[in-house]
């Protein structure tokens, strides 16, 4: 508990410090490439024949995903706290890459835990992390995916807590991580809200984002929470269908549990053992979800749905060919749901989809799945 309390104190102190904010903003603008555009996807909209679909282009950030918003914030915090060794877990490898980048830029040492299975399906990101100077530790325990990488990173942290900072990549884990990561990611929604008002002159009918751990979705939802006229949809991985072990949709199909220091919706069997998960996208392949999503669902403010592997693949193809944008497989789930949703809304309405990352990392996986 002590290291978490120290972290919470340090975060609270620096988050109120104008010079910390200024420094972070500088990094986000000059290094990461903020603000990102809000792009009106006109051909995708025409194809769906419904509401206008806007894409929040987090895929254009340095590293290719929204993850850098959080890693810059936390790496800067770690540096202020005097920690030199940074550890992180990664699923799809995007958080690992973003951690490696932030650490290289700030002169910190990065070690990344990654499940063996994820290393195999996200080979490109493994190479990127190594080229950026990070050490990648393969994780062979459990299902060899994201949850096991978190287990291993937690074990490392309790062993080396004195000199090590654990840079968690999503809005999961014990306090203060869910709050801190949400706050670092909430810049997505702040920009998107301003941009849609500028372009449409009114708020969107809906905001759609994919949910694995839930950081990009919380990041874009946060600024719209009090706009009750805006529907917020989180899209979980429907994998191969809704039988146990075939998907990664804790909010849709899980029940209350405790994992990784948080109480939230968890995929588990009757005895409380955590279920294995399956999704074509490594970044959504996680049996639990950030506790704030569980809370928001319980209040009815947000709604959660699933899209299957093949729906995500179709959306990938559609966006690539209609807009010349290859989305990562994670936000492809959100694109897929948004196109269905658009059909049921009026043409004067708009939808924002958080395009949380680009698809280069998934090209091999997709090439194996899609007919040429």
């Amino acid at each position, binding site marked *: *508990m002590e290291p978490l309390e120290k972290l919470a104190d340090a975060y609270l102190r620096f988050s109120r410090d104008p010079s910390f904010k200024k420094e972070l903003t500088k990094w986000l603008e000059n290094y990461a490439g903020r603000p990102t555009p809000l792009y009106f996807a006109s051909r995708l909209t025409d194809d769906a024949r419904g509401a206008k679909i806007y894409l929040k282009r987090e895929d254009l950030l340095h590293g290719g995903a929204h993850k850098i918003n959080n890693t810059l914030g936390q790496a800067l915090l770690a540096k202020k706290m005097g920690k030199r060794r940074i550890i992180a877990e990664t699923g799809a490898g995007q958080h690992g890459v973003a951690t490696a980048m932030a650490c290289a830029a700030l002169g910190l040492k990065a070690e990344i835990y990654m499940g063996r299975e994820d290393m195999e399906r996200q080979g490109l990101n493994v190479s990127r992390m190594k080229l950026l100077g990070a050490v990648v530790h393969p994780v062979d325990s459990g299902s060899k995916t994201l949850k096991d990488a978190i*287990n291993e990173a937690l*074990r490392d942290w*309790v062993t080396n807590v004195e000199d090590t900072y654990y840079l968690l990549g999503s809005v999961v884990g014990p306090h203060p991580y869910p709050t801190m990561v949400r706050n670092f990611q909430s810049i997505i929604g702040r920009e998107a809200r301003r941009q849609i008002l500028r372009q449409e002159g009114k708020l969107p009918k809906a905001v759609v984002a994919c949910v694995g751990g839930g950081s990009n979705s919380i990041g874009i939802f946060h600024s719209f929470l009090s706009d009750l006229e805006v529907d917020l949809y989180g899209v979980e991985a429907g994998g191969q269908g809704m039988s146990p072990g075939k998907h990664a949709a804790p909010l849709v199909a899980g029940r209350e*549990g*405790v994992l990784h220091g948080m109480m939230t919706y968890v995929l*588990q069997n009757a005895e409380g*053992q*955590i279920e294995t998960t399956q999704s074509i996208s490594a970044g959504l392949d996680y049996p639990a979800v950030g506790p704030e999503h569980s809370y928001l669902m319980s209040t009815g403010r947000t709604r959660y749905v699933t899209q299957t592997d093949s729906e995500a693949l179709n959306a990938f193809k559609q966006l690539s060919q209609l807009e010349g944008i290859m989305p990562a497989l994670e936000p492809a789930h959100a694109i897929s749901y948004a196109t269905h949703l658009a059909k049921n809304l009026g043409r004067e309405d708009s939808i924002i989809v958080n395009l949380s990352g680009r698809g280069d990392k998934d090209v091999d996986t997709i090439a194996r799945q899609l007919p040429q």
Partner: protein
Amino acid sequence: MWTRLQDSFLSNDPIEQKFRELGKRSEGVIVAYLMGHDPDPQSFLANAVSLIEGGADILEVGIPFSDPVADGPTIQAAGMRALSAGATPRLILDTIGELSAQFTVPIVTLTYYNPILAMGVERFIRTACDRGVSGMVVPDLPLEEADAFRHMALKHNLDSIYLAAPNTSTERLQSIVNKSKGFLYLVSLYGVTGPRDILSAQSLDAVKKVKSLTRGKIPISAGFGISHPEHVSSLLRAGADGAIVGSALVRIVAEHLDNPEETQYHLKKNISALKQASKQHH
């Protein structure tokens, strides 16, 4: 020593009684851990009996969880063996019932919070009591979040045992001392479970630090990384009232999976040596 301050603590709690009884003879308490139903229910039962016969003072039984973040590879593997053999909390508690019907050693369970939550906190605690469990360790349930669990345990006269680490602040340690029952589980090093060859100076310092705070209010058992009789003697000399040995025993189980006689022989031999050290530490 624990005995000197026993007057304030005359309860019929089996765990406290054990510490009191051994403390009177200046003897340390050996807490022996095995993963429940590792590698199967029958072998586990026989292994537990060997530990009791070999001199274990308290038996600590693990109930497996798929994601045991506080455990190193040895106990993780044991949990996986138990789960593949079909272990559930209820089945392991039933086996504990068989043990407590035959032996008087206090039995403590160790499991993560999710299996408890899945069964229902009250049902879990009630079943455990009914099967003769005297105390519970829940490594991922910090004191700050444990109120409901602790009160339920109190209601059923079950000791809730909390972990303290070398970096636990004095303030928090104080509240752990106040709220713990049975004994205080001192994680005597940074890290996860697993046998180490050398007991660090850090571990002994942690014992001394905690000892100065508990001032006899509650016995201290030190765990994580204990495998040799010398570890036991030095921890007891530093002021611990007991020593917890886990991974070193689980490793014996793992090394002789096809040979139960060999497992039981080594478990018994090992625990006897540790027990011996707990008697002759001064």
